[in-house]
């Protein structure tokens, strides 16, 4: 075991910094503003650039990204992010433009977005795409608003969105935000229970949300039958694109008869996830739903691009301006670099890597449901219980070996779930090392797993204390310690 994360002593940036004296505040600001709106204190430290850079560089060394190593976080598609994409996004011609500039002065940007829409149409098997949603969950929100607008335009008020119990948490949350009741359907053999679906669908069903392959990595073979059931009932079919990396060029949501689909550009199209964001969640639809897409639409005529607001049936806007444009520019660059064939082989290699790992690891754990998986697979850590261990312990121990942990305890239908998605950008050598680490861990003294991690910047955290203490800022920390010392003194 050679991995050791850096452990720097980096106090919170405010700590120990001499606050500039408050006397510096001029109550009238030389008459710039009326006295009643002028600020009297501001506790932000003045720190030399040299120290600020040291602070954040040392913090960065206490963080783990794809560039550090394998990040097999299931359903998150943590593939390598080509650096040219970041480079393009930083050019002044890309970064130094304003969204309200005259369209004649941003023709290159509009062309990029228009072409990206067309590329996503081809990949998704849909007829029109909006790039406005800022993330996958916002794509769902947009798609479900389109569902609502579509039914309302047909004079119907359908109340319910149906989804399987393996769905990502964002699915039910998005449906609820748009005002729908949510019905979660228990799965059968890890897939949609078609008979149960038949009896659940009614004239109240507005849409069914599904990701295919599903979160177990299983391809829902009955997808056409499922689509038929929904469409016969007048409902729409929504595709959660979180798992699109498995199927590019092999099938498409459109071909599977989905009506609405979102894409996660920060997953399938390699834009860096930035420690939590930004992402981008474009939404594609079939022709009959195009008029409901958010505004403006980017249109092209004779090589000139302009903005079209004239769609009275549109759901309006879900985010200001055009969406996360610099993420769009990165994804566009990635797709151009890969080309059609490159994207297909990305999916092939993602599925190959996943099945290779699945094959190597299934006997070390348990593999519920069918063998063949797509881009990800879910093991059960239930056998660990015999040794008094849990999946959590195994995941924490993996950190000690320099691997990010897989997604754990999801989907909920697998006991002690371990959800692994290696992606196509990892070599066989890396995958073998990962297997080796897993097997070593399973043979280790359970105490080592209980105590893990020990090679990371911190050991296990008291998460209950964080919720109890509610210290969400330096201000709150100071207030609390002042109150504490006051109490101690009295």
């Amino acid at each position, binding site marked *: 075991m050679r991995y050791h994360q850096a452990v720097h002593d980096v106090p919170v940036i405010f700590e120990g910094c001499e606050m*500039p004296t408050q006397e510096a505040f001029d109550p009238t600001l030389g008459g710039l503003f009326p006295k009643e709106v002028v600020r009297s204190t501001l506790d932000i430290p003045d720190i030399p650039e040299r120290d600020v*850079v040291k602070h954040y560089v040392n913090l960065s060394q206490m963080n783990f990204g794809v560039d550090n190593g394998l990040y097999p976080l299931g359903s998150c598609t943590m593939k390598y992010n080509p650096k040219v994409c970041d480079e393009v996004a930083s050019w002044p*011609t890309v970064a130094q433009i304003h969204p309200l500039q005259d369209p004649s002065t941003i023709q290159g940007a509009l062309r990029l977005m228009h072409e990206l829409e067309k590329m996503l149409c081809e990949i998704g098997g849909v007829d029109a795409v909006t790039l406005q949603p800022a993330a996958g969950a916002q794509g769902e929100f947009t798609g479900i608003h389109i569902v609502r607008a579509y039914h309302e335009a047909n004079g119907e008020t359908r109340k319910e969105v149906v989804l399987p119990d393996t769905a990502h948490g964002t699915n039910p949350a998005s449906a609820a*935000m748009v005002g729908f009741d949510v019905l979660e359907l228990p799965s059968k053999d890890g897939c949609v229970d078609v008979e149960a679906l038949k009896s659940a669908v009614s004239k109240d069903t507005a849409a069914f949300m599904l990701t295919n392959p599903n979160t177990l990595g299983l391809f829902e073979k009955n997808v056409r039958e499922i689509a038929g059931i929904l469409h016969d009932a007048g409902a729409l079919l929504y595709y959660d694109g979180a798992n699109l990396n498995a199927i590019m060029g092999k099938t498409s949501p459109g071909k599977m008869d989905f009506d609405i689909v979102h894409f996660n550009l920060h997953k399938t199209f390699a834009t860096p996830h930035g420690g*939590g964001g930004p992402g981008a969640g474009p939404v594609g639809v079939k022709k009959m739903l195009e008029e409901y897409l958010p505004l403006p639409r980017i249109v092209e005529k004779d090589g000139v691009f302009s903005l079209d607001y004239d769609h009275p049936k549109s759901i309006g806007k879900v985010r*200001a301006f055009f969406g996360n444009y610099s993420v769009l520019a990165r994804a566009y660059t990635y797709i151009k670099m890969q080309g059609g064939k490159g994207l297909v082989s990305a999916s092939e290699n993602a599925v*190959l890597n996943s099945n290779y790992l699945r094959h190597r690891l299934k006997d070390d754990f348990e593999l519920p449901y069918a063998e063949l998986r797509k881009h990800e697979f879910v093991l059960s850590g239930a056998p660990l219980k015999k040794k008094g261990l849990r999946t959590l312990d195994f995941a924490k121990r993996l950190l000690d070996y320099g691997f*990010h942990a897989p997604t754990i305890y999801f989907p909920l239908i697998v006991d002690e779930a371990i959800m692994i998605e290696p992606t196509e950008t990892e070599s066989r050598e890396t995958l073998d090392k990962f297997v080796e680490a897993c097997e070593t861990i399973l043979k280790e003294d359970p105490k080592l797993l209980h105590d893990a991690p020990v090679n990371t910047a911190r050991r*296990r955290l008291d998460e209950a204390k964080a919720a109890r203490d509610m210290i969400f800022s330096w201000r709150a920390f100071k207030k609390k310690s002042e109150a504490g010392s006051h109490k101690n003194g009295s």
Partner: protein
Amino acid sequence: MLQAIKLKSVRELFEDIPKEVRTDGLRLPDGMSEIDLRSELERMMAVNRPTTVMPNFLGAGIYNHFIPSAVKTIVSRSEFITSYTPYQPEISQGMLQSLFEYQSFMAELTAMDVVNSSMYDASTALGEAVLMAHRISGGDRFLISRTISPEKKEVAKTYAKGADIKLVEVGYDSATGQVDLADLKSKMGDTSAGFYFESPNFLGPIETRWEEIRRTVGAKTLVVGVNPMALALLKPPGEMGADIVIGDAQVFGTSMSLGGPTIGIFGCKTDHVRKMPGRIIGMTTDLEGRTSFCMTLQTREQHIRRSKATSNICTNEALLALAAAAHLSLVGRSGLREMAKRNVENMRSLSSRIGALKGFTAPRFNASHFNEFVVTSKTGSEKIHKDLLARNIQGGFVLDGAFPELSRSSLYCTTEMHSKTDHDKLVAALEAIR
């Protein structure tokens, strides 16, 4: 590898996809080498006119501010930019502490008890604030000041629709551009969940009558929109009775990039924290008692509560939160206040020069401003816009569409990035055009 898993071909890996839904590859061009791709993209983007080749006087929610070089050094660190949401806190302390520091900077600037670790942008933060006000105060309507950006208004409408909340507009005083208190009083009935206004508002004026507004809103939820850079000088909303504060921290360390990504600020009082959307980072300790950070109060969130969550948000704008924290650390209090003052001074100088031109009134409203102001002219604002463009100047945001009552008006923005030459060029052009 295929051999190792006892398969003969890649085709077998996809055998579970039924024939009737299979597709045969993608009809997209072949891939390109980095060298060819870069030169093609350089050509394609060269037709854009960035601020480096054309002075630009647009604001209206997206601002061109100075970004210290070290911000890029920091946010480009691989360990930050290529990490996912910090689900494993032991190996993600760098991002978690940075997000805590972002929350701390925002809490200090706004004087709110808690600021989450980011929303998508200010417009969606407003949408979420309307929903949260509804969770706090009930009611089937929510009041929104007329002086907000048309973009934000549209987004708020979409969010409100999901919860069947009716948005009701509150007018502004035509002389000062501030909230029309009489209109607010007449509309603030029992069934309103609360009221949203901005200071400085979309048209530029800074609000001064906070006490009356707070009193009128009473026990209902007061949501305030801020420009966090202006808060370097202005009294924070937390000291003026705001329940929820929203804004956009794009002004701290993030380029305009055609308006995205930006970063939504979302703060509230501690009493309401469990009704709040988004991820929150909290301070705690590890097994060895060392100060540590983790995501907390997650039972509000979609991955736990599913359809009962306070919001569906998952991916947010973490890297931009890091940029904001780095930016504020680098400029410090002195630099921040200096920069903010430069904005006010530049605005005052430019607006008085334009106001002195024959046929122009600037600023339109009799109030204090930060860095934006309305210019009204005898000549139509579309014509001025086109004539400026012909002189390679991007003028202000034409208001005729969204604010017809202000006929022949545009919203101009000037920041510390404009030189005296830029101002000279604009003033000379306007004088020639009128």
